[in-house]
């Protein structure tokens, strides 16, 4: 083992100031030579890798060493001393969480001396810990309780008065702190600093007075604060939405994926008395490492919102009134038939679908394209990336970020749109040393971790990406910023993982497409297309995109195949969202179906959406809420939401995972796919689908990219399956994992909750069956089926137009999404709706001085489209010549300024004082 004292001391050369001299005293755990070591734990010989921590090695071999501060996803600190063990030949007790295994080590975790030490630590921890378990949220699932029972004295010799504090104190809007319960393990403070990068909580004072503090006026407003509640080993941290709502023994859980955004973090969804009460992060190595963002963690509240539509409605005498399902479905089908008879399939359009499951998307696609015969279908709202790009780029997985040669983030602010992916990219850059190249119009969440940030003004993203791609491809010397970025890759092999999104909804999508085209020229470039909406990837994959059929095949390529499977497909490529809205505005859409989408609030071009919704003919809303868009519907068909239906979803890397059902809806809401099947029946086609599993099996049969991803595989694959699964076979992990040693909810929760239920059914045959090559590579074909179509590939070739010159007095608009926005998840959830900020126009300090306004003053903002009045503030994160306004914040009105048909949006900002 390396002794810290052996680290060679290097003299500082004369003339080099201390500030430029790197410290030789890094805190390093001695590791020794790489290889395998053999050690003995409680008399059993085990093998481990050099550098492994003793506590983890013991756990992996079935010996649980008690611990409080140690957490697998964070660096060891050795703060709580709970993990003391005896190591022969080492003086005193060793903390196994910071002891590295060595060859020949002999460890006793249960010897008298070890037990006495563990016992002593617990008694000390309990000196000031209140015994208020009956009124503590953690009671019943508390690591301190459990550990005390298993390793402790059971009785304390301490009879004096314990510490008292004011309780509880809010450390943020969502998290409360009962300080007397805290055992100073430092999990929360380390999480905030190390993982989230928001070190807004710290330890204050010392000794018996030590407490977790926030700075006055600077609360723990991290997007990830809820994780501290989950990993706190006592009841010191509680979340306001859950506090006093349930007792752990009353809860039942189902494993699921969060679909609030497109990362699809794994979670255990818990309910009590048919009410969702909690979502806990499950540790999935390829996806979320156990973390959730607060929007995902607390967004379940939307499910039980008072405003949910519980029964179907039809419009009678100008009012939406409740009716029976048969009546509503008949009215909807009649409306569709009328449009079809009068104007044909081209007059029918379907918008949305990104909130549902894959089963929903597939059955809707089959309904629209196979039954109605329209290709006017789009799950995006003019705010995304065209399907031919999104579905056709060479793909990277989230885990590929960890081993990339470099990461290039184009446009979007990951922290605001896909928070847990932000954590992963941050970790890759900060911990794993992967160079991070950022291309963005302003400083945003990741900027502080970027190795280099290239500013690109609205409209210039394509050009900036071209220069970067040139430099990365070896042609240097034209752009210093791009050259600097390329230099970061020297000596690094592997893929360049490009995270591509829409950072600016006022800039036309063509800019992003052009950027993708340029970067895709690099042979080592692979992409994660980060579109934010929950299951937008699954929806597009399964056919809710114009020009596409389920399974990432184009309409033309899949015509014969799907003609065989479905009977018919649309004759020509249809309209995308923008096209649909324009056609509707001009009165050419006679039946419009809105699948959980709200163009009025969520389309960047408000005037267009408004005009379209007003002029559209017969409108069918398939939604859970009456929104500004769906209030105009002629028929309203209420749907079940996340947590109320089982199925599968596809995340932004193409990973298909299951979502679980935990509660049944109030009222008579139905899953989308059933509604689609019912409507199809009324139009004369019987899909013959009764269970979501049957839909999954049909998808696996007919959707080429989903070949083999049927209900069996989905049930057995612990971390889901990345489509197309034939390319990702090696990553499949089948069956239940080792069952966690304790069921404590604070340990990283292992995935496989549901797989464990299947334990009985697990046989070797079953595993072999799930992985059988022919299941994964070929489709079970009926006789006479045509050859399977090839998957779509994006070949580039899209060009953008250079943006018009900006006149010196105008500011170019940047509008991006914020986490707590005006969307229904936030608006209809009590805890989250409190967190929405007031919209403020951000401009650079130089522009503020030029315009001559004070921070906080009201200004009039005018574009070619419209104008609005709001407060302004200078922010150094904003580039000169641009102005930033968050998209879809209540009251921001930014969509009144944007015209989707223009490349950029220029603003005049005038002082009102």
């Amino acid at each position, binding site marked *: 083992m390396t002794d810290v004292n052996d680290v060679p001391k290097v003299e500082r050369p004369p003339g080099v100031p201390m*500030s430029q001299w790197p410290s030789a005293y890094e805190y390093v755990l001695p590791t020794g030579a790489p290889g395998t070591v053999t050690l003995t734990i409680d008399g059993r010989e085990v093998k481990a890798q050099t550098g492994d921590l003793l506590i983890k090695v013991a756990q992996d071999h079935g010996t649980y060493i008690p611990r409080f501060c140690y957490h697998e996803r964070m660096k060891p600190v050795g703060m709580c001393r709970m993990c003391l063990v005896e190591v022969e030949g080492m003086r005193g007790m060793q903390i196994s969480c910071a002891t590295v295994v060595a060859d020949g080590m002999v460890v006793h975790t249960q010897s008298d001396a070890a037990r006495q030490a563990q016992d002593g630590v617990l008694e000390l921890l309990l000196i000031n810990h209140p015994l208020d378990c009956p009124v503590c949220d953690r009671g019943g699932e508390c690591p301190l309780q459990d550990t005390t029972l298993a390793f402790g004295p059971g009785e304390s010799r301490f009879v004096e008065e314990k510490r008292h504090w004011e309780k509880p104190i809010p450390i943020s809007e969502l998290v409360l702190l009962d300080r007397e319960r805290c055992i100073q393990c430092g999990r929360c403070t380390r999480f905030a600093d190390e993982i989230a990068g928001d070190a807004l909580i710290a330890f204050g004072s010392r000794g018996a007075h030590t407490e977790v503090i926030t*700075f006055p006026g*600077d609360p723990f407003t991290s997007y990830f604060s809820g994780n501290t509640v989950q990993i706190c080993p006592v009841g010191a941290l509680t979340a306001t939405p859950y506090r006093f709502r349930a007792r752990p023994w009353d809860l039942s859980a189902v494993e699921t994926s969060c679909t609030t955004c497109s990362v699809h973090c794994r979670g255990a969804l818990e309910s009590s008395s048919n009410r969702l009460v909690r979502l806990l992060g499950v540790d999935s190595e390829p996806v979320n490492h156990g973390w959730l963002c607060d929007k995902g963690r607390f967004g379940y509240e939307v499910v039980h919102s008072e405003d949910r539509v519980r029964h179907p409605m039809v419009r009678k005498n100008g009012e939406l009134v409740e009716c029976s399902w048969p009546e509503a479905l008949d009215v909807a089908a009649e409306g569709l038939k009328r449009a079809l008879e009068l104007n044909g399939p081209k007059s029918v359009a379907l918008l949305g679908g990104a909130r549902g499951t894959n089963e929903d998307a597939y059955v809707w696609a089959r309904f629209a394209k196979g039954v109605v015969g329209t290709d006017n279908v789009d799950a995006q709202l003019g705010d995304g990336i065209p399907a031919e790009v999104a579905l056709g780029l060479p793909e990277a997985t989230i885990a590929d970020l960890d081993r990339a040669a470099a990461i290039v983030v184009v446009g979007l602010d990951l922290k605001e749109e896909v928070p847990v992916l932000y954590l992963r990219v941050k970790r890759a850059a900060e911990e794993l040393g992967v160079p991070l190249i950022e291309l963005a119009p302003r400083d945003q969440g990741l900027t502080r971790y970027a190795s280099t940030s290239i500013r690109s003004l609205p409209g210039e993203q394509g050009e900036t990406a071209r220069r970067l791609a040139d430099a990365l491809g070896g042609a240097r010397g034209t752009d210093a910023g791009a050259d600097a970025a390329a230099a970061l890759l020297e000596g690094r092999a592997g893929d360049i993982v490009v995270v591509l999104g829409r950072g600016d909804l006022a800039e036309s999508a063509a800019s992003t497409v052009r950027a993708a085209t340029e970067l895709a020229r690099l042979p080592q470039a692979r992409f994660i297309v980060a579109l934010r909406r929950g299951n937008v990837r699954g929806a597009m994959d399964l056919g809710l995109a114009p020009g596409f059929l389920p399974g990432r095949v184009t309409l033309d390529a899949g015509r014969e195949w799907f003609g065989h499977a479905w009977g018919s497909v649309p004759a020509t490529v249809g309209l995308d969202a923008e096209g649909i809205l324009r056609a509707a505005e001009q009165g050419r859409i006679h039946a419009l179906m809105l699948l959980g989408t709200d163009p009025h609030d969520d389309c960047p071009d408000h005037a267009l959406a408004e005009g379209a919704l007003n002029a559209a003919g017969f409108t069918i809303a398939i939604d859970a809420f009456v929104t500004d868009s769906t209030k105009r519907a002629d028929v309203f068909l209420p749907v079940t939401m996340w947590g109320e239906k089982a199925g599968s979803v596809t995340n932004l890397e193409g990973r298909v995972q299951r979502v679980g059902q935990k509660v049944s809806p109030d009222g008579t809401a139905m899953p989308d796919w059933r509604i689609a099947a019912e409507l199809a029946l009324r139009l004369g086609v019987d899909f013959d689908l009764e269970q979501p599993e049957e839909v999954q099996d049909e998808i696996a049969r007919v959707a080429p990219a989903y070949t083999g991803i049927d209900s069996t595989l989905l049930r057995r694959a612990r971390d889901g399956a990345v489509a197309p699964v034939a390319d990702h076979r090696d990553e499949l992990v089948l069956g239940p994992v080792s069952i966690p040693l304790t069921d404590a909810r604070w340990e990283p929760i292992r995935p496989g909750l549901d797989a464990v239920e299947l334990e009985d059914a697990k046989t070797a045959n079953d595993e072999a069956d799930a992985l059988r090559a022919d299941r994964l590579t070929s489709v079970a074909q009926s006789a006479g089926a045509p050859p399977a179509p090839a998957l779509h590939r994006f070949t580039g070739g899209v060009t953008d137009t250079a943006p018009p010159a900006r006149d010196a007095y105008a500011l170019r608009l940047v509008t991006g999404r914020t986490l707590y926005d005006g969307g229904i998840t936030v608006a209809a959830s009590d805890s989250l709706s409190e967190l929405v900020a007031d919209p403020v126009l951000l401009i650079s300090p130089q522009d503020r001085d030029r315009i001559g306004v004070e921070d906080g003053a009201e200004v009039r903002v005018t574009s070619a489209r419209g104008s609005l009045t709001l407060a302004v503030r200078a922010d150094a994160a904003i580039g000169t010549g641009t102005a930033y306004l968050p998209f879809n914040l209540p009251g921001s009105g930014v969509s009144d300024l944007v015209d989707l048909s223009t490349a950029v949006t220029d603003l005049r900002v005038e002082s009102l004082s």
Partner: protein
Amino acid sequence: MAFSDVNLTRARDIVARYPRPKSAILPLAHLAQDQDGWLTAEAMEEIAVLTGVTPAEVQGTCSFYTMFKRRPCGSLLVSVCTNVTCLVTGGPAILRHLTERYGDDDDVTVEEVECLAACGGAPALQVNYEYHEQLTPEIAEALVDDYKAGRRTPRTISGAQR
């Protein structure tokens, strides 16, 4: 601005002395305390900016040490020992006397402390951490007045002048 211009320059120099700016938190806290007599919230915020950490981390670090005052404190801090040896040699009387005498003097803060490790010269006190031993209430008062009148120069930890 929490730091005066002079002290801000000093603060930047101090930060530059360390390989990691974070290491300068304690010296900057001393500097701020010497300037204001105590650690104001604004000072902690400015230290956070200068050292690239959050204000919570600065407060966490500084609150570990009782020598950093987080409530207003006079420019003269008189720490009177009342631990065993001083207890039996008259420390409490000195404490009482000084507390009364300077009760409404904003420049002088009198505090009670544990053993100053000057038992051999008990009763003992410190004025801005400078030792004075074998005192009586009268000598102690005269001593503090000397400081107040400028006949003695109070020390500061950072060497900064107020």
